[in-house]
C-alpha cells in the first residue's frame, strides 16, 4: 500500500505539532445564512447558539440580501448551474462578458478578466505579465496570495517597509536598471485595516517610471465616496495600472475575483494566466448575483455610508471602554492584545458572551502583534454594537486589559 503506516504516523505527528504550538485551526459550523446574527455550533457537536458576528467580510451586508438571492435564483434558472468548462473552451456566457464590462465601469479601468477567486487572480497575474527583466516591489504587509503570486513570477522581488514612502522611493531609485518597476500593495490591509497612501504611491510611480498594482479586496464596494475602492478614496481613479479584487467580500461574499486595469495587461492575463486558463468559469449563479450587487452598489451609497458610520461608532465604543486599537479609517478595527495566548482567551470568552470574533497571532501577524480583528458590516445595527461592547468591556475587565497601552499589556502578559 502506497499510504504506508510510517507516512500516516509522520503526518499525525505533524498535526500534533501544530496543535501543541497552539496553531490548530478549528472550523465553527454556522447553521444560518451569513449575517449580523448567526447560529453557531462550536465546538463541533454542541448545540448551535445565537451570536453577533463581528468577523465576516460581509462589509455591505449583501451576502444574504433578498435582491441578490433573487438574482442568483434567476441566474440559476436562465443560465444553469455549472459550465463544465474553462472560460476559453466553452465556459464563457454572455453574462460573464456583462459582468466584466460592469466591473470595468465600476472600477474605472480599461478592461477586466474574471478569475475563480482573487487568490487565483493574484496567483496568475504576476507570472503572466512580468519576467526576469522586471522587479516587483511590495509593501511588507501585502496579503499572502500576493506573496504566493510573486513567487510564481520570474521577476526580481523586493519589499519596502509597510507604507513607508521614503523606503519605497529608495527602492524605486535603486531599481532603475530594471525594464519595469511594479509597486505592489493592498488597498486596505487586511490585518491592520489601514489604507495604503495610494496618492503618494502614484506620485512616486510617476516620478520613477513604475507601474502600480493594488489588491483592493478589502475596499471594493465601500472605500471612497461611491465605494469604488481605495483609488477613489485617495483621488487616483484611472491612475492604477492593475487592480485585483474579489466578489467574495463586500460584493456579495460568494466567490470569484478579477484582474482589472490597462487593456493590454488584462489581455495578456487572458492569454497566459494559468488559474484563468486551467480553472473552471465562475458559475452563472454567482455571475448573475454579482451583476445585481453592482447594480445595488451603484444605485445608492446608503450601505457604504452606514458601514462608515458603524465603523466610527464601534471605534468610539472600544476606545471609550479602554481598548488599545490600531488607528485606521476602514471597517477593519483591530483590538490589540499583543500576546497570542491572551488573544485566544479573549476571543474564546467573547464567544461565550455571544460575540463571534477571532484572535490572530503569528504567523498570520508578526510576533508580538496578536489581536482580535473586528469587522463591521452595514448589516449591523446600533443595538448589535451596543450589545457587543458590553461583552467586550466585561471580558476586557476580567482579563485586566482595559486602559492599558502596548507597553503595559506586554509588561503584564509578555509577548
Amino acid at each position: 500500500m502506497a499510504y504506508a503506516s510510517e507516512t500516516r504516523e509522520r503526518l499525525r505527528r505533524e498535526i500534533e505539532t501544530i496543535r501543541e504550538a497552539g496553531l490548530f485551526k478549528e472550523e465553527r459550523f454556522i447553521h444560518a445564512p451569513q449575517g449580523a446574527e448567526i447560529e453557531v455550533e462550536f465546538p463541533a457537536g454542541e448545540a448551535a447558539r445565537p451570536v453577533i458576528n463581528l468577523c465576516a467580510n460581509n462589509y455591505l451586508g449583501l451576502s444574504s440580501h433578498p435582491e441578490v438571492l433573487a438574482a442568483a435564483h434567476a441566474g440559476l434558472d436562465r443560465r444553469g448551474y455549472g459550465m463544465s468548462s474553462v472560460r476559453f473552451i466553452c465556459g464563457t456566457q454572455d453574462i460573464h462578458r456583462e459582468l466584466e464590462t460592469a466591473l470595468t465601469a465600476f472600477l474605472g479601468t480599461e478592461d477586466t478578466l474574471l478569475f475563480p477567486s482573487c487568490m487565483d487572480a493574484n496567483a496568475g497575474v504576476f507570472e503572466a505579465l512580468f519576467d526576469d527583466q522586471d522587479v516587483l516591489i511590495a509593501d511588507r504587509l501585502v496579503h499572502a496570495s500576493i506573496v504566493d503570486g510573486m513567487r510564481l513570477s520570474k521577476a526580481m522581488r523586493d519589499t519596502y517597509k509597510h507604507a513607508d514612502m521614503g523606503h519605497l522611493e529608495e527602492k524605486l531609485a535603486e531599481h532603475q536598471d530594471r525594464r519595469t518597476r511594479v509597486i505592489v500593495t493592498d488597498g486596505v490591509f487586511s490585518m491592520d485595516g489601514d489604507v495604503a497612501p495610494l496618492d503618494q504611491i502614484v506620485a512616486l510611480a510617476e516620478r520613477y517610471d513604475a507601474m502600480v498594482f493594488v489588491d483592493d479586496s478589502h475596499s471594493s464596494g465601500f472605500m471612497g465616496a461611491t465605494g469604488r475602492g481605495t483609488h477613489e478614496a485617495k483621488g487616483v481613479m484611472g491612475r492604477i495600472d492593475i487592480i485585483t479584487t474579489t466578489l467574495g467580500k463586500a460584493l456579495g461574499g460568494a466567490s470569484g475575483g478579477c484582474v482589472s486595469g490597462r487593456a493590454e495587461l488584462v489581455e495578456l492575463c487572458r492569454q497566459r494566466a494559468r488559474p484563468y486558463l486551467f480553472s473552471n468559469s465562475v458559475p452563472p449563479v454567482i455571475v448573475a448575483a454579482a451583476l445585481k450587487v453592482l447594480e445595488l452598489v451603484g444605485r445608492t451609497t446608503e450601505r457604504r455610508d452606514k458601514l462608515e458610520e458603524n465603523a466610527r461608532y464601534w471605534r468610539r465604543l472600544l476606545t471609550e471602554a479602554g481598548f488599545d486599537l490600531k488607528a485606521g479609517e476602514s471597517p477593519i478595527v483591530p483590538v490589540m492584545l499583543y500576546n497570542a495566548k491572551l488573544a485566544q482567551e479573549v476571543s474564546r470568552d467573547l464567544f461565550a458572551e455571544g460575540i463571534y470574533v477571532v484572535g490572530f497571532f503569528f504567523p498570520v501577524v508578526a510576533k508580538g502583534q496578536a489581536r482580535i480583528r473586528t469587522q463591521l458590516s452595514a448589516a449591523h445595527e446600533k443595538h448589535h454594537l451596543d450589545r457587543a461592547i458590553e461583552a467586550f468591556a466585561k471580558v476586557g475587565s476580567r482579563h485586566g486589559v482595559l486602559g492599558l497601552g502596548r507597553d503595559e499589556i506586554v509588561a503584564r502578559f509578555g509577548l
Partner: protein
Amino acid sequence: MNELQKLVRDYVVREYLEEGDTRTIDLDTPLISGGIVDSFSMVSLKRFLEKKCALQIPDAEATPAAFDSVRSIVDLVARLGGKGPAG
C-alpha cells in the same frame, strides 16, 4: 565586530527593523529563521553586498542558510572573494 560585520549589521537594522523595534542584532542573531528578514527581502541585502563588496553572489549561494546571520553573510562574502567595503 570588524568593519564588514558592522556594515552588514547596520544595513540589517536600517533596512529590516521597523521604527521602535528595539531588538539588537549581533553576529549570530537569526535573521531569516528569526523572522527579521523574509526571503523576498533578501534581494535587497544581496544587491547591497554585491555593490559594497564588488562581487557577484550566484543565486545558488544566496540561500536562506547563508543569509541567516551577520556572521554567515560575512563568511559568504569572504568565501566568494569579496573585497570588503568599497565605500
